């Protein structure tokens, strides 16, 4: 399944006027009637600021509107457009074609997530595991009833977890994780990093509760510190650091 029309034929209808072009290979797969993944190829002109998402949207606009892709904010905030771009998990809206240094860009759905269709994957498990670690402050009192009205925190206390609150739940870390590649039950780096985010929050009192949840054969002990999750995170969360610091609590290195 390969077709190579050019945007030059669609004169005047494209925002890209560059003479440079790449071959965009898009994975096509519909689990309802396809047995294997196939690829469609398109010649797309690009500028130095053109992102992979913009190139995919050009394909949808001019060549094949049936390509399934999830996106929303186009500014690396919503975490919707995660996909495998030239072999590595990246956000399509945050990846410029010019920085890939390749004349062929291959986009595929993220690994370790069930495919809905083409580039769109199911996030159910990611959200389930995220919810499992209780991603909220656990305390007996509330800001409404306490006399102080708010839970005060020093800048130093904020620094302990603020990095991990940048998570946009895009799933790239879970897609890169070697344990997720084989273990369907593993909690995953996203949820574990978020467990650390709340455990390290001085306002939270649910540390023991959360540590009990992740102290499981498919929990934190399945992380082997390969660090791939941190390398692909588009927001600088560094899940590998969070997981090791969290394990430090469980091993008694931290209190």
């Amino acid at each position, binding site marked *: 399944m390969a077709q190579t029309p050019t945007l030059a034929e669609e004169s005047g209808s494209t925002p890209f006027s560059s003479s440079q072009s790449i071959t965009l290979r898009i994975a096509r*797969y519909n*689990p309802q009637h396809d*047995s*294997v993944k196939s690829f469609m190829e398109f010649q797309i002109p690009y500028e130095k600021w053109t992102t992979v998402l913009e190139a995919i949207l050009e394909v949808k606009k001019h060549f094949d509107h049936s390509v399934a892709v999830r996106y929303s904010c186009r500014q690396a905030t919503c975490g919707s457009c995660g996909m495998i771009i030239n*072999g*590595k998990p990246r956000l399509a809206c945050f990846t410029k074609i010019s920085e890939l240094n390749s004349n062929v860009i291959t986009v595929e*759905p*993220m*690994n*370790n*997530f*069930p*495919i809905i269709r083409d580039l769109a*994957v199911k996030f159910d498990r990611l959200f389930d595991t995220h919810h499992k670690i209780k991603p909220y402050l656990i305390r007996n009192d509330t800001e409404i009833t306490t006399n102080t009205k708010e839970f005060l925190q020093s800048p130093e206390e904020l*620094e*302990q*977890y*603020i*990095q*991990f609150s*940048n998570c946009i739940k895009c799933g790239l870390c879970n897609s*890169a994780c*070697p*344990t*997720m*590649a*084989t273990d*369907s039950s593993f909690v995953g780096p996203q949820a574990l990093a978020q467990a650390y985010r709340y455990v*390290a929050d001085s306002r939270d009192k649910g540390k023991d509760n959360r540590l009990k949840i992740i102290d499981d054969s498919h929990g934190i002990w399945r992380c*082997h*510190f*390969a*660090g*791939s999750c*941190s*390398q*692909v*995170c*588009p*927001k*600088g*969360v*560094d899940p*590998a*650091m*969070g997981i*090791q*610091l*969290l*394990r*430090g609590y469980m*091993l008694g*290195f*931290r209190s």
Partner: protein
Amino acid sequence: MANQDENKEGIGGMINPRRYGIERVAYLLMRLSGLGLLAYFIGHIYETSSILKGQIGWNEFLAITQTNAGHAILAIVIAMCVFHTVNGIRVMLGHGGVGVGKPARPDYPYIPASQNIRHKMGIYSAIILAAIAMMYGLAVMFGE
């Protein structure tokens, strides 16, 4: 269709060392050396159990390790042992949260603190020490 539906990378993706730098190479070598040492351990128990057959049986089995192939296998075992030990110390310290950096507000381009130079040095040291130990082993075994 189950695997295709789950879209898991599988073992092929797990052992692919090419995409995520030296840390993923270390991850693969750690697994391979662990499995190799386990296989050696089982073989070693089997070999030493041959003493139950008396001195002749013991000597016959021991002669296998004195061949070129035996020497080569022992040299690989030495390399696996050294790499697994040195890298294992690095990983154990990391697992305790030692040397993985401190949480801080990240700045673009977001270089992960946990993948710092100390860990990279640890990995390269493990590989170099394993190579030196293997070469020393080869020199001793084949140098006579």
